[in-house]
């Protein structure tokens, strides 16, 4: 893990945050609008985008989640810096 976090790191992280927020909004919306076809398609499209963005981020900067929800390179990356609150 490079000690200095690059601009790209923060940009990718923010993009992930944006996708996550859209997914949260759409989830809450779809809870009350189950038969809104367009929103459902948008939800699935955004979910796919989010998986792709997370995959790219993890390939480059290490695991985002733990307990098997993310892969890790050798040596074990989870316990290395930076921790989420240090980013």
């Amino acid at each position, binding site marked *: 893990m490079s000690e200095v976090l690059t601009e790209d790191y923060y940009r990718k992280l923010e993009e992930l945050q944006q996708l996550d927020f*859209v997914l949260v909004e*759409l989830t809450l919306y779809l809870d009350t609008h189950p038969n809104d076809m367009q929103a459902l398609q948008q939800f699935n499209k955004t979910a796919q985008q989010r998986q792709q963005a997370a995959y790219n981020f993890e390939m480059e900067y290490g695991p985002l989640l733990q307990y098997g929800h993310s892969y890790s390179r050798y040596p074990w990356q989870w316990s290395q810096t930076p921790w989420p609150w240090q980013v």
Partner: protein
Amino acid sequence: MEDNQVREWHPFIGPFDPCPPVRVKTYVVPPNQFITFQPMNLPQFSPAEALRLGTLWPSLYSNYTSKRRGEVVTDE
């Protein structure tokens, strides 16, 4: 700071009030008070704007600016 969501009212100020009077008090009535059931296919923000503004739909946006920067209307 006239904004269609911010409303104000003038509390009664008595001669024996212990503290300095607040002449005008404001409160926010966000748009979701007027929409009983959200219609389908409303226009949406881009993901970047949505994250920044806190909602995906412009029609539900309420800016709720902070009052700490001295924006409280105190004079009559």
